[in-house]
């Protein structure tokens, strides 16, 4: 992207990750600036989630370095917010929407948490920011998938992070909820300058917001704008096989992605479109 004088929020230098005896990716140099929206694409098993895990400090790099806001990554840092994909939770679990958000604030601390010291004001504010205040008192497990993702977004943002990491947050959401969530992410980075790393297998729902794309495939990668990376030429070179990229009505369709040896159940032809 355009080079700015300010220090990047996220910086990877010559980073490599090994899974067993397989190198997921290596030699990765990446700078993500404040307010930038980076989409991470790639087939299953290409190391998208592993990238997030290494930024979160949950996965050790084989070589290279990761820094967030100029410091080496530390597990549980308040500078990072993390939103995962929607998963069903038992409706009987005794956690309400506001309790889930509160966990993002002090769930990792030891002790019970004295009632008068809980920062419910920050919880309320985070819920309000994503429009989830109306169901703050409702058990998390009985909320709809879209409502749960709003609450997870509030949970990730309650510490006011400089970097927002999203791992397929749109999975199994209906189209309206997808728009709501992507809209929230976009507003957050515009209003607060939060850098966004958004792992997804569908580019189209985030296409209007994406600044740059990191495409991982078979141990290699490409970084650049959507127009630079998502082309027949670039993807064919990356996969070493003919890939067809078609643009149609503001959407991008990709056909011909070869079956990965690591995921035999992966369909031979993958569509990036929903």
């Amino acid at each position, binding site marked *: 992207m355009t080079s700015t004088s300010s220090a990047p929020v996220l910086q990877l230098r010559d980073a490599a990750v090994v899974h067993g005896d397989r190198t997921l990716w290596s030699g990765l140099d990446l700078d993500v600036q404040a307010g930038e929206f980076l989409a991470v694409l790639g087939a299953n098993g290409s190391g998208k989630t592993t990238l997030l895990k290494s930024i*979160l400090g*949950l996965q050790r790099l084989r070589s290279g370095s990761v820094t967030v806001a100029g410091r080496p990554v*530390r*597990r*549980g*840092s308040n500078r990072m917010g*993390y939103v*995962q994909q929607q998963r069903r*939770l038992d409706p*009987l*679990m*005794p*956690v*309400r929407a506001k*309790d*889930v958000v509160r*966990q*993002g604030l*002090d*769930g*990792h*601390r*030891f*002790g*019970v*948490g004295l*009632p008068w010291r809980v920062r419910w004001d920050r919880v309320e504010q985070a819920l309000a920011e994503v429009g989830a*205040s*109306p*169901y*703050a*008192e*409702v*058990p*998390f497990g*009985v909320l709809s998938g879209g409502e749960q993702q709003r609450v997870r977004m509030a*949970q990730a943002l309650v510490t006011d992070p400089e970097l927002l990491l999203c791992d397929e947050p749109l999975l199994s959401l209906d189209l309206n909820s997808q728009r709501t969530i992507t809209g929230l992410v976009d507003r957050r980075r515009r209003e607060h300058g939060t850098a966004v790393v958004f792992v997804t297998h569908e580019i189209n729902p985030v296409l209007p917001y994406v600044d740059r794309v990191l495409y991982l495939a078979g141990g290699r990668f490409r970084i650049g704008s959507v127009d630079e990376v998502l082309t027949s030429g670039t993807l064919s070179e990356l996969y070493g096989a003919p890939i067809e990229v078609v643009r149609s009505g503001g959407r991008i369709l990709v056909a011909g992605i070869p079956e990965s040896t690591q995921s035999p159940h992966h369909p031979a032809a993958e569509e990036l479109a929903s």
Partner: protein
Amino acid sequence: MIHLLESSVGSDVWRQIFDFANYGELLDLVRNSLIAGAVLGLVGGLVSTFVMMRDLPFAVHGVSELSFAGAAAALILGVGVVVGAMTGSILAALVIGALGSRARDRNSIIGVLMPFGLGLGVLFLSLYKGRSANKFGLLTGQIVAIDTPQLRWLIITAVVVVAGLLVIWRPLTFASTDPELAAARGVPVGLLSPIFMLLLGLAVAISVQIIGALLVLSVICTPAAAAMRVTASPRKVPLLSMTFGFVSVVGGILLALGSSVPISPYVTTISFLIYLVCRVIGAWRTSHGWSRSRRSTAQPAAAAAGG
């Protein structure tokens, strides 16, 4: 108990189940049992909150059978039931915790361990030449037999369990609801699991000595299962659960005093009735309550459409 002898000839069954003659004197005799029951009810209720959240009822049952085996072995060796029950349940809890991090693994390991433990227990009991009341008591409860040193052990163990739970309360809750995110936020998820299993083992060891190995779940599962039906508040669930556990065990002992049958059926029945009532309330709440707890600002459009 004593009443069995008095009411033996021609008495009806109800006389055996409920008889409150000389109640005051009896209360004095069971002071230790009442204290033990109260402690067990409170600790059991507290622990069962996490047992339910972490989906561990089957593990509780497995641990209690091995605790029974340990207690039975202790009878033969003459080292005291407390030590035996403790050793058995801690070993079982650690094995289950270490080998079964995933629910499927855990269930199969428990399924394998449980009959083995129960079999060992039966073997030890059949070799034991002492009072036969002790044998039956380990399986179905023997609260009247609590002596003062046993009570002291029980209270110390209970204090350890409660203190341990209070220390790891928030991270354990986080790890029980969303382990992956908890790990990302810096919670030592892998360490909390064996620590909780250890505390659970201690709680089970107390329960086995009082309520009996076969009936532990009525104290370390049912109370929280009932509480979770009526509230989703992470503070109210443990408080309600402790209340339910306390009422079940202490209520069971008080009712059993005027009878000639063991206390366990009273405890399990009260516990079950509380659960039934909570289920009915919960069913009503699911159909009416949760939608109402959404603030009215939630659906201005819906309200406009409706009105």
